[in-house]
C-alpha cells in the first residue's frame, strides 16, 4: 500500500495526542502527575494540538476536504465514520478538561478527564479497526493491528508525558509506565511481524482469476502499458533490505531504546533523567514514523495479484 505522508503524520500525531490525553485524564486525579495549572496547560494543550494537527493532516488525504463533515453520518457501518464521531465527541470533554486543569478544577475536571480518556481510547480503537477490517490486505486484517494502534498511542503519549513531567521533576510514574509500554510494544510488534511473515496469502493469482484448474497462472500482457491509480495506490513495493532495516529502526529505536532510557531515567532523575526523557522522545518519534511507514509499505493488496505480483512479494 502507498505510504501516504498525510496518513502517517495523522496516525502518529493523533495517536500520541490521544495517548497523552488518556494518561493525563487517568493519572491527574490519582495525583501521579503534577497538578499545577502550568503542567496541565502544557500537557493537555500539546495533546489537543497533536490531535488537531493529525486530524488536519488526515484531511489532506481527501479529494474533497470541504465535504469532510459528511464522514460523521455512517457510523452504523463504517469504522472511519465511527472514528470521526469519536474524535469530534472527545473534543467536548477534552476542551473542558483543558479549561479545568488551568483553573485547578476539582471533581468536574476529574470527570472531564476520565471522559477524555475514554474518548481517546475509543477514537484510537476506531482508527485501528479501519485497517483491521480490510480483508484484501492481510497484513492489516490481523488480530494484533488494533491492539498495536492502542499500545503505540498509549506508549508515545506516556513518553511525551514523561518529557513534560521531567521539567517539574516528577517523571517517575509516567517514565515507569512508558518503559513498560515500550517493552510491550517491542514484543507486540515483533510478534506481529513473525506472524504476518509466516501467514499464508489471503488469495492467489489462481483464485483471483478462477484459472487455477488449468495450472499455475502467470501474467502475459498487462491491460495498460503505463501505471494507473491501482498500481500507485495498492501495488507499492518495498525492497526487502530496506524493510529489514526499517523494522530494526522501528522496533529498536522506536520501542526498545526509549524503554531502556526511561527505565534508566528512573533512578537518575533530575537533569540527567530529563536528558534521557528527551532522547527517548526523539527516538520514539523516529521509530514510530518508521513503524507507520512500514505498516503501509509492507502491506499487500489482493488487486496486485491481477498485475502478477506474487502474494508474498
Amino acid at each position, binding site marked *: 500500500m502507498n505510504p501516504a505522508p498525510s496518513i502517517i503524520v495523522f496516525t502518529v500525531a493523533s495517536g500520541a495526542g490521544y495517548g497523552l490525553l488518556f494518561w493525563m485524564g487517568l493519572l491527574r486525579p490519582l495525583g501521579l502527575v503534577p497538578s499545577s495549572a502550568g503542567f496541565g496547560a502544557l500537557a493537555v494543550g500539546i495533546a489537543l494540538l497533536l490531535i488537531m494537527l493529525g486530524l488536519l493532516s488526515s484531511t489532506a488525504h481527501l*479529494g474533497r476536504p470541504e465535504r469532510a463533515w*459528511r464522514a460523521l453520518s455512517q457510523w452504523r457501518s463504517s469504522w*472511519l465514520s465511527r472514528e470521526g464521531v469519536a474524535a469530534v465527541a472527545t473534543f467536548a470533554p477534552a476542551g473542558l478538561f483543558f479549561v479545568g486543569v488551568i483553573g485547578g478544577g476539582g471533581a468536574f475536571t476529574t470527570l472531564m478527564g476520565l471522559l477524555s480518556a475514554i474518548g481517546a481510547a475509543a477514537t484510537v480503537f476506531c482508527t485501528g479497526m479501519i485497517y483491521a477490517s480490510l*480483508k484484501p490486505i492481510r497484513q492489516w486484517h490481523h488480530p494484533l493491528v488494533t491492539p498495536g494502534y492502542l499500545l503505540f498511542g498509549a506508549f508515545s503519549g506516556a513518553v511525551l508525558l514523561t518529557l513534560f513531567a521531567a521539567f517539574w521533576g516528577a517523571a517517575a510514574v509516567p517514565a515507569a509506565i512508558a518503559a513498560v509500554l515500550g517493552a510491550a510494544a517491542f514484543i507486540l510488534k515483533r510478534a506481529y511481524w513473525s506472524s504476518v511473515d509466516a501467514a499464508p496469502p489471503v488469495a492467489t493469482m489462481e483464485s483471483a482469476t478462477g*484459472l487455477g484448474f488449468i495450472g499455475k497462472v502467470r501474467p502475459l500482457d498487462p491491460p495498460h502499458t503505463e501505471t*494507473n491509480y491501482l498500481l500507485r*495506490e495498492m501495488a507499492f513495493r518495498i525492497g526487502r533490505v530496506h524493510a529489514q532495516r526499517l523494522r530494526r529502526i522501528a522496533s529498536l529505536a522506536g520501542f526498545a531504546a526509549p524503554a531502556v532510557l526511561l527505565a534508566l531515567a528512573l533512578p537518575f532523575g533530575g537533569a540527567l533523567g530529563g536528558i534521557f526523557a528527551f532522547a527517548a522522545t526523539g527516538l520514539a518519534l523516529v521509530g514510530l514514523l518508521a513503524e507507520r511507514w512500514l505498516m503501509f509499505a509492507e502491506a499487500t493488496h489482493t488487486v496486485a495479484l491481477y498485475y502478477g505480483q506474487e502474494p508474498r512479494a
Partner: protein
Amino acid sequence: MTSLPTPPPGAKKLGLVIDLDTCVGCHACATNCKEWNTSGHMAPLPDRNPYSAGQEGVWFNRVHSYEAGEGEEGRTVHFPRSCLHCETPACVTVCPTGASYKRAEDGIVLVNTDICIGCQLCAWACPYGAREFDDDAGVMKKCTLCVDRIYNEHIPEKQRVPACVSTCPANARHFGDLGDPDSAVSKLVAERGGVALMPELGYQPVNRYLPPRRAPKPDAGPPRDPGPLPSQITNPLLRWVDKVLSR
C-alpha cells in the same frame, strides 16, 4: 446509507457473465465502456497526458492477459476485470459518508459523486480493483453496470445492455439477472460451471466467469490397422499406387 439494503422479495441481482473461453482480448469492451461512461452517469472519466508519455486515466474495465498451465495443457486467457457488484460489498459498508451504496431493487453498486469526500477507503476495501479515483474531481468512480443504458427508454430496446456487452464482437459478455435461476445468464452459468472470483474473501460477487473449455484430448481409440507393408504387395501396379498414395 452505506449499510447494505435488504432486497425486497424477488429483487433482481443484475450482473455480467464473462466467457473466458471466447474472449479474444480485443479490448473493445474496455474501449466502449470508456466511451460511454465518459459522458454517462459518472462522467467524465479523466485522462492525464493522453498524447504523451505517462498517460493514464480512469477506466471501469481492464483486460488482462494471462497464461495458465504448462505445455499442451497451457492456455492463453484474456481476462476482462470490472466491478462484480458483490452481494456483500465492503466498499459500500466502509464508506463514511453514504456516497457508496448498493441498490436494493437490482443490486447495482454505485457512488454518489455529489457527496463523496474522496477518502478512497472503498478502493482499499475492494479486493478486485474495481474502483479508480478521479484526481480531477477528487471523488471515486466505478462501473455503473451502465445504469444509464439498461433502463434507458430513449434508446432501442436491443441496446439496453451495458456498453461492454453490446460491443463484444465475440459474444463473450452476457448481461442479466443472476438472482433468477431461470434467466439465460443463470442457465449459462449452470451449464458451463461459471465461477466467482476470490470467493474465499466472502464478498459474494454477482458476476460470474465461465472457465475456458478444456481442449479435447486426442482420442487414442483402438490402434488403426496399418494395412499391408509395401513389401507384402505382390502386384507391381498396386505397389506403385500404394507408393503414390502414401506420399
